[in-house]
């Protein structure tokens, strides 16, 4: 299981990467492994305003339907449309090609975020 050092993590097993005033969201390697084969991703609409902690996407595995929550507040400016045809990218490249959405951050509002080390400890608990 990988936990890159350049990302922040949430207790709901999402990751967020901040780039200037934008943030990119996805789910962690731990999350994709726990869900199993992902067969469908419902993406948010461009322009939607998200509050921190708001459910903004849905990932469906063979057996389960799971909400995905926004780590930080912002407006959706881009979504990973590749996931509509290849939802399995969330499994195979959770931190790369399996990203879900990009937002323009609105202020500093966020859920509790963890560093890679803190998330590693969180998973061990």
């Amino acid at each position: 299981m990988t936990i890159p050092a350049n990302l922040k993590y949430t207790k709901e097993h999402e990751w967020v990467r901040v780039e200037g005033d934008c943030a990119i969201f996805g789910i962690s390697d731990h999350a994709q492994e726990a869900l199993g084969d992902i067969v469908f991703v419902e993406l948010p609409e461009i322009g939607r305003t998200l509050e921190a902690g708001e459910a903004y996407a849905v990932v469906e595995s063979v057996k389960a339907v799971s909400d995905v929550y926004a780590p930080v507040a912002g407006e959706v400016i881009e979504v990973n449309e590749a996931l509509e045809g290849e939802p399995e990218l969330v499994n195979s490249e959770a931190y790369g090609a399996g990203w879900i959405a990009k937002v323009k951050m609105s202020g500093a509002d966020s859920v509790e975020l963890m560093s890679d080390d803190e998330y590693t400890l969180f998973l061990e608990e």
Partner: protein
Amino acid sequence: MTELAKTPLFDQHVALGGKIVPFAGFEMPVQYKSGALREYTAVREGGAGIFDISHMGQVRVTGSGALAFLQYVTTNDVSKLIPGQVHYSALLNAGGTFIDDITTYKISDTEYYLCINAANRHKDVAHLQAEAKAFAVSVVDESDDTTLLALQGAASQAALQPMVNSELESIGYYKFARVQVNGVDAIVSRTGYTGEDGFEIYIPNSIAISVWKTLLVHGAEPIGLAARDMLRTEMGYALYGHEISDAVTPVEAKLMWITKLDKGDFIGKTAVEARRAAGPERRLIALKLTERGIPREHYKVFVDGVESGEVTSGMHSPLAGGVALAYVQPEHADNGDLSVEIRGKLVAAERTTLPFVRSNVRR
């Protein structure tokens, strides 16, 4: 909460990386290391998959009254079976609704073997033993002594043949033979729940692990509950607790083909006849989404924008997309624009025919 049971193969499942979940009172593998999709593909695309379905129950019915008894307690016409033949059937209650769906194996005129659902086992056995009192018959629950493996997929026969002392080629679809597997008496039937060629193998618990391991050596891949459910849903096969239950009769469930009203009296017959005359309360349909999405169990089905029923089994089929079985109001079974409510949105669907995916069983 009663403790969950384990099959004789539990440790094998754990050793193979099986993700264990509670299912019908047992701890069973929902998938192994490679994941449900790869397991599904192994069975559907030319390989062989091995499923531990030992949680299912087996009941032996013996005695001079065996035929008369089974004619009375099951829906299909047992007089049509020849020794070595299996058929799909059901146990109904007096109200005509399902106690269980079963398979009946005819060993001889005085000996039959029933395979029943795990979750219904104790209910079924109690029912059968109560009804047996009026017949010259004995009903013995052999579930705890029996391991049942399903071996499914085009490569099944090649994987199993080296372990069996007779020619599997001679066993036709829905036929069985009493053979030796790894030198021990067993029943092998050309039956299954996947729409692929394959076998169901009844063996004593004592050889469960050796047979399992030998099949793995012969190239069979272990398959969990998730892939099993995908394979059966693609065929549109009914599953107790989903399409059939004690709330529906064979008239609703499209199972009149196993309910022989012309064979003489049987439990539930009068109620089924009355329901057929009055018309079904709802009807089972097969649907396919025409937009993106996955229809899942209990999602509401709408016809012309009005709620009509709900999904009983649904999935994302790698071959057919979002497909489902659903009950709708009888007047909506053939007419009206279909949609499925997914997270508050109506997603368009169309009626389709079963199976959702081509069956490769050997007819």
